[in-house]
C-alpha cells in the first residue's frame, strides 16, 4: 500500500509522466476519437456538467417565479421551464451521471482491466448522448416543450403545442446511449476481471453499476417503444393513447412508468456504490455487511420492475392493482433501509475523519434517509391519494435525486478527483461547499413537504397567497444551494491547474484503482494485478499518515 506523496510544489512533473491525459497526444482529434474509457469518462463529465448548469438555470428561474403568488413568467414560459428542467436533469444529467463518468473511469480500474469490453461502443455511446443532448437543446431554443418530463397522453400526443416530437426524439436517442453503456458494463464485469477478482471481491461500486446496467438494458427499450408510439399518434393520428381515437391513456402511464420507475434506481444505485466506497475509507473499517449491501442492490434492480403502478394510485387503476403495487413498494423499501443501516454500522468503532468526500457521503445518508422514508408515505395508498401530484412528491423525489444522487456524485467527484486529475483541491473550500449544499438543500426542499400536505399542487405557475411563506423559504434555500453547486466549479477548476500533486493513493484507500499512478497510464496497470483479498481491508489501526 502506497503512502500519500503530497509535495508542496505545483510545477513538479507528474509522478511517472506516462498518463492517459498526455499519452496518445493532446490534440482535439485524439480526444474526439479516443477509445480510452478514461478519456471518454472525461468527455462525459464535461458534457453532463454543461447539462447540469442548463437544468440548474431552469430550476433557478422556476424558484424565482415562485417567490410571489402570481409569478413573473407567462404560463407558457413557466410550463416550458419545468419541462426543460425535468427532461435535461433526468436524461442528460442524472441517468448518465455516475455510471458514464465514474463508472466509465473506474470499473476497468477497479476490476484490474485495461479498458471496457467494447471501447468503440463506449465512444459511440457518448456520440449518441451528445446528438440527443443537442437535439433536446435545439427543441428548447426553437420554442420548447410544455408536457412535463412525463409526456402524459393525450396531452402530449394531441393537445400540446410545443416541439414534442423533437423532444421525444432526443430522449429516444439518449436511451440508446444508456443501453450501450449498460451492455458494456455487464460484459466487462463478467469477462474482464483480473485473476483472483472473484464476484465477492468486487467493490460495491462495481456491483451497483452492474445492477444499474441490468435495468438500463432491460427497461430502456420499453421507454423507446413508448415514446415512439406517442410520436406515431402525434404525427399520424393513429389511436394508441387518445381515447378520442380509440386509444387508452392509462396504457401510456403503465408503459412510461415501467421504464421510469426502474429509472429511479438507475439514478440512485450508482450513488449507493459511491457511498459504499467512501464510508469504509474514511471510517478506516471494512464495509459492514458487504454481502447484504451487494444483494440488496440486486434485489432492488429486480423488484424495481414490479412497483411502477404506485405512480398511478389516483389515475384509475383497479383497487386490487393498487393494493398489490403498494405492498410491493413497501417491500422494495426494505433493501434500501438495509443499506442505510449498514453504512451507519460501518461507522461504529471506526477512526472517522471528515474530509470533503466523507462530508458529502454523510450528507447523502441523511438526505437519502429522509427521501426514502417519505417514499413510504407515498407508497401508502390512502396517503398518496392526498399528496400525489403535490409539492410533497416534488420534495420526496428531489431528496432522492438531488439530496441523494447529486450528493453521491459530489462525494465521488471529490474522492476520485486526485486519481482522475493527479491533483488535490482546496480541502476547506470543498468542506464549505459540502455544508452549503446540505443546508441549502434542506432549506429548499423541506418546506415543500409542508406545502404539499397543505395542498399546493405541482406544475403551478401561480399559487394561492397562503402558500407564499413556505415558497419564500424554498427559494431562499435554492440560492444557498446554487452557491454550493457553483463553488466546486471554481476550486476544482483551480485545482486542475494549480492544485498540489496527489500521489497514487492520497486517501490510503484499498481499491485496485489506487494501486496505479495518478493519473493512471492509458493501459491502467503496468502489470495485470492479482487479487488475493476481499475489498475494504482497512487496517484496524489508523496508518501513521492519517493521524
Amino acid at each position, binding site marked *: 500500500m502506497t503512502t500519500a506523496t503530497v509535495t508542496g510544489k505545483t510545477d513538479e512533473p507528474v509522478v511517472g509522466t506516462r498518463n492517459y491525459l498526455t499519452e496518445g497526444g493532446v490534440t482535439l482529434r485524439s480526444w474526439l476519437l479516443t477509445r480510452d474509457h478514461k478519456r471518454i469518462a472525461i468527455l462525459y463529465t464535461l458534457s453532463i456538467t454543461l447539462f447540469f448548469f442548463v437544468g440548474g438555470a431552469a430550476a433557478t428561474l422556476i424558484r424565482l417565479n415562485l417567490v410571489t403568488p402570481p409569478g413573473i413568467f407567462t404560463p407558457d414560459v413557466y*410550463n416550458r421551464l419545468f419541462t426543460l428542467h425535468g427532461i435535461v436533469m433526468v436524461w442528460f444529467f442524472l441517468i448518465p451521471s455516475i455510471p458514464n463518468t465514474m463508472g466509465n473511469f473506474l470499473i476497468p480500474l477497479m476490476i484490474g482491466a485495461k479498458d471496457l469490453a467494447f471501447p468503440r461502443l463506449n465512444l459511440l455511446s457518448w456520440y449518441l448522448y451528445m446528438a440527443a443532448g443537442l437535439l433536446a437543446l435545439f427543441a428548447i431554443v426553437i420554442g420548447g416543450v410544455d408536457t412535463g418530463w412525463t409526456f402524459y397522453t393525450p*396531452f402530449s400526443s394531441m393537445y400540446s403545442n410545443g416541439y414534442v416530437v423533437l423532444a421525444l426524439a432526443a430522449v429516444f436517442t439518449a436511451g440508446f446511449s444508456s443501453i450501450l453503456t449498460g451492455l458494456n458494463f455487464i460484459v466487462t464485469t463478467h469477462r474482464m476481471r483480473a485473476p483472483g477478482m472473484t464476484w465477492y471481491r468486487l467493490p460495491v461500486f462495481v456491483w451497483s453499476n452492474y445492477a444499474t446496467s441490468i435495468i438500463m438494458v432491460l427497461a430502456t427499450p420499453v421507454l423507446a417503444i413508448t415514446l415512439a408510439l406517442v410520436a406515431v399518434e402525434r404525427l399520424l393520428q393513429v389511436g394508441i393513447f387518445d381515447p*378520442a381515437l380509440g386509444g387508452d391513456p392509462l396504457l401510456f402511464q403503465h408503459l412510461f412508468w415501467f421504464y421510469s420507475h426502474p429509472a429511479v434506481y438507475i439514478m440512485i444505485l450508482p450513488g449507493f456504490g459511491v457511498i459504499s466506497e467512501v464510508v469504509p475509507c474514511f471510517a478506516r473499517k471494512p464495509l459492514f455487511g458487504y454481502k447484504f449491501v451487494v444483494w440488496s442492490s440486486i434485489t432492488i434492480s429486480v423488484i424495481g420492475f414490479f412497483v411502477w403502478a404506485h405512480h398511478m394510485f389516483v389515475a384509475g387503476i383497479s*383497487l386490487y392493482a393498487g393494493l398489490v403495487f403498494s405492498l410491493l413498494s413497501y417491500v422494495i423499501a426494505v433493501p434500501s433501509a438495509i443499506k442505510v443501516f449498514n453504512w451507519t*454500522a460501518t*461507522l461504529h468503532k471506526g477512526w472517522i*475523519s471528515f474530509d470533503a468526500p466523507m462530508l458529502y457521503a454523510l450528507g447523502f*445518508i441523511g438526505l437519502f434517509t429522509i427521501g426514502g422514508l417519505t417514499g413510504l408515505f407515498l407508497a401508502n395508498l*390512502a396517503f398518496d391519494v392526498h399528496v400525489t401530484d403535490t409539492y410533497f412528491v416534488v420534495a420526496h423525489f428531489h431528496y432522492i435525486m438531488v439530496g441523494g444522487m447529486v450528493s453521491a456524485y459530489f462525494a465521488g467527484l471529490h474522492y476520485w478527483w486526485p486519481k482522475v486529475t493527479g491533483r488535490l483541491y482546496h480541502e476547506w473550500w470543498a468542506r464549505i461547499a459540502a455544508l452549503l449544499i446540505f443546508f441549502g438543500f434542506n432549506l429548499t426542499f423541506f418546506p415543500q413537504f409542508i406545502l404539499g400536505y397543505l395542498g399546493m399542487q405541482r406544475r403551478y405557475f401561480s399559487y394561492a397567497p397562503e402558500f407564499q411563506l413556505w415558497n419564500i423559504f424554498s427559494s431562499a434555500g435554492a440560492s444557498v444551494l446554487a452557491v454550493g453547486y457553483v463553488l466546486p466549479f471554481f476550486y476544482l477548476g483551480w485545482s486542475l491547474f494549480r492544485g498540489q500533486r496527489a500521489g497514487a493513493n492520497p486517501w490510503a484507500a484499498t481499491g485496485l484503482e489506487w494501486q496505479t499512478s495518478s493519473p493512471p497510464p492509458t493501459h491502467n496497470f503496468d502489470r495485470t494485478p492479482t487479487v488475493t483479498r476481499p475489498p475494504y481491508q482497512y487496517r484496524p489501526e489508523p496508518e501513521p499518515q492519517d493521524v
Partner: protein
Amino acid sequence: MGSMQILPATASSHAADMDWLFAALVGTSGFILLLVFGLMITFCVRYRANSKVERGNRLGRTWRLEAAWTAATFAAFLALYFWGADLYIRIHRPPPDATDVYVVGKQWMWKIEHAGGQREIDSLHVPVGRPVRLVLTSQDVIHDFAIPAFRIRQDAVPGRYETLWFTPTEVGEYPLYCAEFCGTYHARMGGSVVVMEPSDFQRWLDGQGAGPSLAQEGEALFRQYGCSGCHGAASTVHAPRLEGLFGRPVPLEGGGTVIADDRYIRDSILLPRSEIAAGYPPVMPSFAGQIGEDELLKLVAYIKSLADRTAGNTEAGPPAGGKQAGPPAGSAEKDAR
C-alpha cells in the same frame, strides 16, 4: 404573505382518519430518522479519528443483526401498509345512499351537474353530513379533481368514468384544484367546494332555476338521438330493454357477465361492439364523436333512472333494490376491472 400554516383544513370524515395515518407515518419515520441520525452523530463524535476511545470487540457475525433490522423494519412497514390500504378501500366504496354529482373536466374548467339538473362551473355546492359520490370524466386531456380539505383526489380521464366520494363534516368554503398537468392554464383550473347546511343547500338548489333534471334531459336526448327507436317499448328491433337494467349483471355474448354501471352504459353507446349483451345481434351503430361528455352523462342518468322500472317484456329479474342497485355500481366496477 402566507402564515406558518402546517395542516390544511379538516372538513370531511375521511380527512380526520387521514391525519391519524399521517401522524403514524410521521411517528414511525421520525423514530427511524432519529435512530439513524442519532447513531451516525454518536459514532462520528465518539469514533472520530483522533479520539482514543476503546474500539476492541467489534461486531462480528453480522447476519443476526441484519436479519433483526430487516424483520423489524418490514414489520413496521407492513402495519402502515395495511392501515393505508384499509382507508383506500373505504374511500373507494361509496355508501348506497350517496348523492351523485357529475363532473366533467375540460381545459381549463370544471363543469359540474347535479342530479336535479343544476349546473355550476368551478364550484361545487354540497350539503354537510351527507355522502356525495362524484362521477368524473374529461372532455380532452387528463385532469385531476383534488380537494385537500377532504384529503381526496381522483384523475378525470377522458373516455372513462372514475368515482370519488366524501362526507363533508364542516360547513365552509374549501379550495378545489386540478392536480394533473393539463396545459397552459393548469394552475388556474380550480375553484371551491362550498359545504352548506342541508337547509341552505336545498335553498341553493331551488334558487338555481327549475330546469329539467339530468334524467329528464337524458330522456329527451334518448328520443333525439333515436335510441328509443330500437330500445323503446314500441320497437320491433331485437334490442335489449333498458328498464331495470342499471346496476344488474348482464350476460355477454361469448361468455362472462358485466355489471351494467355508468362505464358499461357509456361504453355501450360509444363502443357498442366491445361488450355485446348475449342473445342480441350486434346491430347498434357507434355514437362516438356525435355525443359530447355532458350529453352522455345525461343519457346515463336517464338509463339509471329506469333501474326501478319494469319493461313490458323484461329480460332481467324484477327490481330487487338489492345491494348491487344504484351507487355501489361504481365500486363494483372498480373490482371488476
